[in-house]
């Protein structure tokens, strides 16, 4: 089991409110991603769940048991840190075995579990090496191995891939997702990278200044953002926001159109503009179009499109894909 309930969780450092009262339910086996900009409180929230930070008020329950005042190790959670946090003086085998040793398990049992974790994570050939002799990806695997052997109720990941290069990040993302599927355990994953959030999560929790802006599946958030913040944060490239007459004509203060929902032609359309920068990625082309009336609009066009800097183009938003927001930024 691995259900986690947060009730009126509040964290303040002195007079500064990091997390105003917050409620959240995490179901057993879910892959939940906390996403938000730097300083939004996502790591603090994870550390509160882990027990590494004391709460100012509120309760946290794991599998129906109130763990608010319990030590981190008693919560049956395992955590993978951004810096891997491996013990540099221990070999890979000893790193993975450490939680089992602390739990007082027999050496035979420890050896069996370490070998099993090493097999799952392709670390069998590296068991006698020290962390300093491993690559970034291997270190991250050791950190995951150390988490697996404890057989926790839930895994907590604090930006685990941000120290890896782009290619390795992609591979590890896949490995963690596969691990989630094979273990079927609850995982809470903190990231500021919305691509990681979209590709890995069953449920995304978007945080801003300690508040939950929206909770939902990746596609829910993409299709129906509740407010301007979520609309702007989820999706890459970012959603275009337009105010003024075009918005008023649709009964809104602001309208939002995703770059992929903007039709582009060189003959006619709703908004006229001039191409600033054209980024040809092969599969797609990202165009930054300076329009006459609506500022710079980003467009995701077909990879084969033949336009370049200085060309005049016409943009037309797909009517069914336009998001409308009121003066408070709430979706209409």
């Amino acid at each position, binding site marked *: 089991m691995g259900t986690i309930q947060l009730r009126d969780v509040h964290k303040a450092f002195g007079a500064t409110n990091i997390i105003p009262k917050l409620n959240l339910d995490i179901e057993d086996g879910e892959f939940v991603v906390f996403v938000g900009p730097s300083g939004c409180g996502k790591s603090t929230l994870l550390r509160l769940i882990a027990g590494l930070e004391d709460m100012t008020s509120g309760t946290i329950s794991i599998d129906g048991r109130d763990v608010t005042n319990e030590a981190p190790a008693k919560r049956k959670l395992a955590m993978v840190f951004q810096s891997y946090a491996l013990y540099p003086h221990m070999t890979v085998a000893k790193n993975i075995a450490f*939680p089992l040793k602390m739990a007082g398990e027999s050496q035979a049992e420890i050896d069996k579990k370490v070998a099993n974790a090493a097999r799952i994570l392709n670390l069998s050939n590296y068991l006698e090496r020290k962390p300093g002799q491993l690559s970034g990806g291997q270190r991250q695997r050791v950190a995951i191995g150390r988490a697996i052997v404890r057989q926790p109720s839930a895994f907590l990941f604090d930006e685990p891939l941000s120290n890896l290069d782009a290619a390795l990040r992609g591979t590890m993302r896949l490995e963690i997702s596969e691990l989630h599927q094979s273990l079927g355990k609850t995982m809470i994953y903190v990231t500021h990278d919305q691509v990681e959030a979209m590709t890995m999560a069953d449920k995304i929790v978007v945080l801003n200044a300690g508040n939950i802006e929206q909770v939902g599946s990746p596609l829910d958030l993409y299709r129906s953002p509740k407010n301007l913040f979520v609309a702007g944060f989820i999706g890459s490239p970012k959603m275009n926001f337009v105010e003024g007459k075009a918005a008023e004509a649709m009964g809104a203060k602001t309208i939002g159109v995703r770059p992929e929902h903007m039709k582009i032609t060189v003959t006619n359309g709703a908004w006229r503009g001039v191409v600033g920068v054209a980024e040809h990625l092969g599969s797609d082309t990202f165009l930054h179009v300076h329009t006459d009336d609506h500022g710079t609009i980003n467009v995701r066009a077909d990879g084969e499109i033949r336009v370049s800097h200085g060309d005049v183009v016409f943009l037309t938003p797909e009517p069914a894909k336009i998001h409308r927001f009121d003066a408070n930024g709430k979706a209409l």
Partner: protein
Amino acid sequence: MARAVKTSTRVSYTIAAWVVALLIFFPILYTIITSLKTEGEAIAGFNLIPSFSLESYREVQNQQNYIKPFTNSVVLAVGSTVLGLLIGIPAAWAMAFSPTKRTKDVLMWMLSTKMMPAAAVLVPIYLIFLRLGIMDSRIGMTVLLMLINLPIIVWMLYTYFREIPGEILEAARMDGANLWGEIWHVLTPMAVPGIASTLLLNIILAWNESFWTIRLTTTNAAPLTAFIASFSSPQGLFWAKLSAASVMAIAPILIMGWFSQKQLVRGLTFGAVK
């Protein structure tokens, strides 16, 4: 590309380094030379060539038992340092990983006790020793030397511990380590270079401490510093004998320092370059 250093610059730096090193080492060298002279040569004036007489060493041995003060020095230096580490490691852990607003003030206050002249507290400490009946006792001196060097122990360890990422200790906590498990299995092994250099430096400091050891010991707990002092006798100064006693007193620590200099330098410059 690295800038090439001119040969002449390198030569002048080397000469300057040798001059400074010789200046620092000269008092020890001259003590060794004097100890190998006869009393007559020693009193005759500055002379770098001794007659390599071992007479003074023989006399020092005959006049006083060397083994007892040597044993006392070992007990006091090692004992006070180990005791200091047992108290200093948890203290530095608390200050480095669980600091409060006042941690810096506490550290400064601890250091400020080192700035106070020892003579200022001679009378109260003398009276405390007298009342507790620990005058001239190894236990009393071990505790006193530990207290004198504790600020340095805590400061050094605090500096080393600050270099250790807090996330590693948090990982240990998540892995089920309790406070002592965290300190014993993770923090201490990671801080071994720092702890070792703290240990070495404090053994040297405790070995050489003379203000308190001379004043609060007579025979039972008197270490080698008191042994040297006993040779500046009322019968007059015997330079060669005094030098021989000094060499016998500093030789063990000098040899230990020589063999552990790599560790000492590494520890003392720890954290200076990342």
